[in-house]
């Protein structure tokens, strides 16, 4: 049975539907990321699991127990906020021990636990400092130590990395992930950063307007988005609409393309093609699904270049392609030049839902 189970959750603020019919099951030890743009309900969902917001309808089961109507303190979780929410007047040791105070543990055990937690987050010996003496990343590590010190069964992270600078964010991201794997604590994180979600999650829950759009592991979400929104939100995508002419070919404007999946002749399909899936060919290469395109613009981004181009075929739209610098090997791409490119058949995968 799922460790955390959410059934038919519904929450409304006035006329604004923050959560609609949310169904989600989280396995023990799993790292689940709630992903979506601001206002999509991801934070409300997290806060409802924490008991900080109360749902209008629906159930939350944690370890087989119905916690839907319990107060936050009666639930078993640790939480970390974007703002760290460290107590500024208490030092690091007192902050980490904050939840331990009431447990009447012995003084030794108490201090031992604080040392242990600080070592765990890589900041041993900082217990006498005040939060304001630490960097943002260090403060967030202390907040994590404080949340984990009481050995909660569930860890909730509310955009924990959003307030940090780029380098610190990358570092803490992998630290949180490996810490989570070491401790095996079931974790739910909220973020609006798709890269963060892809890098950290066992499973990603994509949300929009209070509804779950798709649930799947990072690979599934990226490779086969179930609708336009998911395709657009996770990475860049080219949307192509085409009609099947037989079981494996479609007509896209004046182009006839082969798809590796089985199609229904006569049906209209939508395909999301990732920029990095478009291949750059030698000018005379006439392999499958290839065509000429004119370069409109080329953006050099270090490890790769983003090329906007228009196929020289009637009835087609401009496309975005991504070529790795490794592959280009220093060859420049100038606006106005002509390229031979192709869309491999295995990347022409129709989207299940027509939005």
């Amino acid at each position: 049975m799922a460790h955390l189970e959410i059934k038919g959750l519904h929450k409304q603020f006035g006329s604004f539907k923050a959560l609609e019919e949310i169904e989600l099951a989280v396995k023990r030890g799993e790292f689940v990321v709630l992903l979506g743009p601001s206002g999509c309900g991801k934070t409300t969902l997290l806060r409802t699991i924490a008991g900080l917001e109360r749902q209008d309808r629906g159930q939350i089961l944690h370890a087989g127990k119905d916690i839907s109507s319990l107060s936050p303190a009666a639930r078993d979780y640790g939480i970390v906020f974007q703002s760290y929410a460290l107590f500024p007047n208490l030092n690091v040791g007192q902050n980490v021990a904050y939840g331990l105070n009431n447990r009447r543990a012995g003084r030794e055990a108490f201090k031992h636990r604080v040392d242990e937690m600080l070592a765990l987050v890589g900041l041993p010996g900082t217990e006498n400092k005040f939060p304001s003496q630490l960097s943002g990343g260090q403060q967030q590590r202390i907040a994590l130590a404080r949340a984990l010190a009481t050995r909660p069964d569930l860890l909730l992270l509310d955009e924990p990395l959003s307030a940090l600078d780029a380098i610190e964010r990358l570092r803490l991201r992998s630290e949180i992930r490996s810490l989570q794997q070491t401790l095996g604590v079931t974790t739910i994180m909220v973020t609006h950063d798709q890269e963060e979600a892809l890098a950290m999650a066992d499973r990603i829950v994509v949300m929009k307007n209070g509804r779950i759009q798709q649930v799947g592991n990072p690979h599934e979400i990226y490779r086969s988005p179930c609708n336009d929104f998911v395709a657009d939100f996770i990475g860049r995508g080219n949307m192509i609409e085409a009609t099947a002419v037989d079981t494996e070919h479609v007509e896209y404007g004046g182009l006839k393309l082969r798809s590796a999946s089985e199609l229904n002749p006569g049906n209209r399909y939508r395909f999301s093609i990732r920029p990095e899936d478009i291949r750059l060919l030698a000018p005379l290469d006439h392999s499958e699904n290839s065509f000429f395109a004119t370069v409109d613009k080329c953006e050099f981004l270090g490890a790769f270049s983003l090329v906007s181009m228009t196929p020289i075929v009637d009835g087609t739209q401009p496309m975005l392609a991504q070529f790795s610098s490794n592959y280009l090997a220093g060859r420049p791409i100038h606006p106005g030049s002509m390229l031979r490119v192709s869309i491999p058949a295995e990347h022409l995968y129709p989207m299940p839902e027509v939005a």
Partner: protein
Amino acid sequence: MNTLAARVWRWKQNVNTSASVSGIFLLLAALGLCVFLLLPVGALFSQSLIDESGRTSFVRFREFAATPGMSTAVWNTLWVALTVTSISVPLAFLYAYGIQRSCMPLKGLWRTIGLSPLFGPSLVGGISFIQWFGTQGALKSWLGETSVYGPVGIIMATVFASFPHALMILVVALATSDGRLYEAADALSASRWRKFMTVTLPSAKYGLISAAMVVFSYSVSEFGIPKVIGGNFQVLAVEIYVQAVGLHDFGRGAVVAMVLLVPVLFAFVVDRQVQRRQQASLTSRAVPYIPKPDWRRDAPLLLFTLVVASAMLGVLGMAAYTSFITFWPYNLDLTLHHYIYGLADAGVLDAYLNSLWIATLTALFGAPFIFVTAYMLEKTGSRTSALHSAVQGMASLPMGVPGLVLGIGYILFFNHPDNPVNGLYQTFTIMVIVNVVHYYTSCHLTALTALKSLDREFESVSASLKVSQFATFWRVTLPVCLPAVLEIARYLFINGMTTVSALVFLYSPSTLPASVSILNLDEAGELGPAAAMATLIIVTTATFSLLYSAAARMLLRRHQAWRLVTP
């Protein structure tokens, strides 16, 4: 498993208790504000609408309108208030501008001098201007044929007394300007005048409006000054006093109070609208403006500041000087006569002790009550519940109710023979309560600002760590907000020491406060002892402020070590 269940149950109990504790506290606060704010004002309201035979009618208002001189009083009150506003606000603006936007030396000193009228009762200005410009005044010739007793004196003394109120608002308004706007204006090579008109004034606009409203209300509801220096010049505030205390006609007093309430409530509503907008116009990304030395700006500003500061010191100094000389202007020998015979032997010194007692109690009970109420409002329960909105509304109301109006409401309500708490009337208790209620709003706003600056998630974090919310209040919220609590206590003490308006209706001979005794001494023509009492009050509040900052600094050093560390 069993112990776990027991533990969970216990925590659940805990949380439920804390929720109900805050509910009960807020309910009590609501009840308190209801009894000591809404009901008295309501009593005033109903009294003004009930005629002699006990029926509801506008008869009293019609009578009021028909009384000869009343329309003059209304008109006088308004034009004096408008004149005071149009003098006090520009003066305070330039003064604040000098403090915030120039590189003149000794800014801290100028600021303290600018705020110094707050240390004494408003009457001080009245007494002092009589000494300067009165019949025997040192500078009587400056006024030519015009008498200081009347609008001229009222305007001068009210400008003096309201100046620090405008200054406080404008100093803050000018402090929060965005330096980047000036850099942008410089980059576009805008002239000095253009920068002032397009950047400085718009960014201080809300502060200016707010200051104007505060000064206007102050002038409309000020009673001590026209009483002392107004001569026969009729204004509404004095009219209330004359009707209620002089003629014991509370019904008529209530009507005048209602009329007085109208312009003050109007100013209050305008001010609130403005404040709401101002909050939205400030961004956290603003870069503070740091002025660069420029003698063409600094020299005139310094000159202006010097003139205003000397005038202020001249007013305060004259009051103190008067208390030490034998008989103005015939015998200028220095003496302690007024203190020894005028106050101590005349038994008026008790009034000073009464005021100390009232001010201490006001600070001691007011500050915790106001802070805890603000905490319950801000950090417990659902902030949109009816109880929360009710308390929030009542907390912001007192700013729109002049002390005089509150005082006369208290008489009508608490002096009513059917009132079960009738026994409170004329006791220290009710005087302390009326002070807390009268000065509630600014204290409440100070507390709210401090509480809002705390991370919103402290309560969520402590709930997730299963620590009761009140443990977190004690260990985190209160220590972090300590400076605000101390500031509230100081504000209440100083106002408790200097206020006249509400207390003038509520004292008995044994509870006579010092500030009211000045009024009585002045009425008896005892200007020397009156000045002596005023000086005593100023020395007390100034000393208290000094000791207080020293104590606060020590306390902060011991308990707020975290504030002093640098990353």
